[in-house]
C-alpha cells in the first residue's frame, strides 16, 4: 500500500512551514557538538605535563611599571605542542563528522569550522611566537596593575580563546543557539581567567589557565551529549 502522510496540495504557509521543519530536523541530525568539546578538553589536559616538565626559557626583558623588569617566559615545547595538537584535533573532528554523516545518512557542512579552526590555530602560533620575543605582560602580575584591555588582548592570544573563537564558527555551521550561549560563556570565562594573578614561583602556576577551560569544555561536552534533541519526526 502506498502511504503518504502529507497532503498533496498545500498553501504557501504550509509549504514554507514544512520546509522550515525538515531543515530544522536536518540541522539537528547534523549536530555532533559534544565531540569537538571533548577533543579540545582532552588536548587542554594533555598539555599539563608539557607545561610542568618541559624546559622554560626566559626571553628578552624590558622595563616594566614601578621600576620592574618585564620578561617573556617561553616554553618552546608548548609553542610546538599547540599548533600540532589543534590541527590534529580538527582532523579528528572532521573525521568524526564524516563518519557520523555516513551513519545517519545526512551530509554535514563541517568544512568551514575545520578550516576556520586551522586558520585560527596558525594565527595563534604566529602570535605566540611573536609574543615570546615581545613581552607585554609581567610573568607575575600579583603586585602590578595591568590595564583591562591588555588582559583581554592577552587572553585572546591563548589556545583556550582560539578554541572558543572557532566554536563561534561551529555555531553558524550548526545554527545551534545553545552552542552560541555556551561559546560566549566559555569565552568570558577564558578571558576572565587569563587575568588571574598567579605567583610564578609555584611549579604548577599554569594550572588554572588549563584546568578551568578544560572543565568548562568537559561540562559542555557532557551537556550537549545528554540534552541532544531528537531528529526523529514527531508523531502527528
Amino acid at each position, binding site marked *: 500500500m502506498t502511504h503518504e502522510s502529507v497532503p498533496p496540495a498545500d498553501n504557501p504557509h504550509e509549504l514554507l512551514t514544512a*520546509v522550515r521543519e525538515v531543515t530544522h530536523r536536518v540541522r539537528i541530525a547534523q549536530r555532533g557538538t559534544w565531540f569537538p568539546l571533548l577533543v579540545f578538553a582532552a588536548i587542554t589536559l594533555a598539555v599539563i605535563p608539557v607545561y610542568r616538565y618541559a624546559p622554560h626559557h626566559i626571553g628578552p626583558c624590558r622595563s616594566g611599571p614601578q621600576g620592574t623588569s618585564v620578561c617573556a617566559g617561553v616554553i618552546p615545547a608548548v609553542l610546538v605542542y599547540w599548533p600540532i595538537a589543534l590541527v590534529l584535533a580538527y582532523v579528528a573532528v572532521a573525521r568524526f563528522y564524516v563518519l557520523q554523516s555516513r551513519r545517519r545518512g545526512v551530509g554535514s557542512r563541517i568544512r568551514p569550522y575545520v578550516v576556520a579552526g586551522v586558520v585560527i590555530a596558525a594565527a595563534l602560533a604566529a602570535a605566540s611566537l611573536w609574543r615570546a620575543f615581545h613581552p607585554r605582560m609581567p610573568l607575575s602580575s600579583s603586585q602590578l596593575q595591568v590595564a583591562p584591555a591588555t588582559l583581554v588582548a592577552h587572553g585572546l592570544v591563548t589556545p583556550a580563546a582560539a578554541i572558543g573563537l572557532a566554536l563561534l564558527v561551529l555555531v553558524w555551521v550548526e545554527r545551534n543557539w545553545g552552542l552560541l550561549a555556551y561559546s560566549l560563556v566559555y569565552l568570558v570565562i577564558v578571558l576572565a581567567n587569563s587575568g588571574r594573578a598567579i605567583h610564578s614561583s609555584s611549579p604548577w602556576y599554569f594550572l588554572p589557565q588549563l584546568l578551568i577551560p578544560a572543565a568548562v569544555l568537559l561540562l559542555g561536552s557532557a551537556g550537549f551529549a545528554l540534552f541532544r534533541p531528537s531528529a526523529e519526526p514527531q508523531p502527528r
Partner: protein
Amino acid sequence: MTDHPANGLDDVVHQRVRLGILAIAHQARQVEFGFLRTTLELTAGNLGQHLTVLEKAELVRIEKGYEGKRPRTWVTLTTAGQTALRKEIAHLKQLIQQVEQADTAAPTGDR
C-alpha cells in the same frame, strides 16, 4: 500572462514532498534515501517516485553505491535544483505577502 507570483511556481517543485526533498538536500549537501524516507514519513516506493520526477527534471543527482555490504542511495542537489528551490521559496514568500496585503486592505465590513 501577469507577473503574479503564482505564475512563477514550478509544478515539479511546488509539491510538499518534492520541496521537502530539495530543502533537505540543500541543507545536507548529500542525503541518503533512508534519511529522506524517515524524515518525510514516506514509503520507499512513494519516495522513489518523487525522486524520479526530480531526477528527470535534473534537479537532483542520484548515486547508488555500497557502505560496507549495505546498498546505499545518495541524493545530491544540482545547481538547477538549488536555483529551483530558491525561486520556489521566493515565490511562496511573495504569495504570502500579497495575501497578507490583500487581507489588510480588505474592508472590515466583509467579515
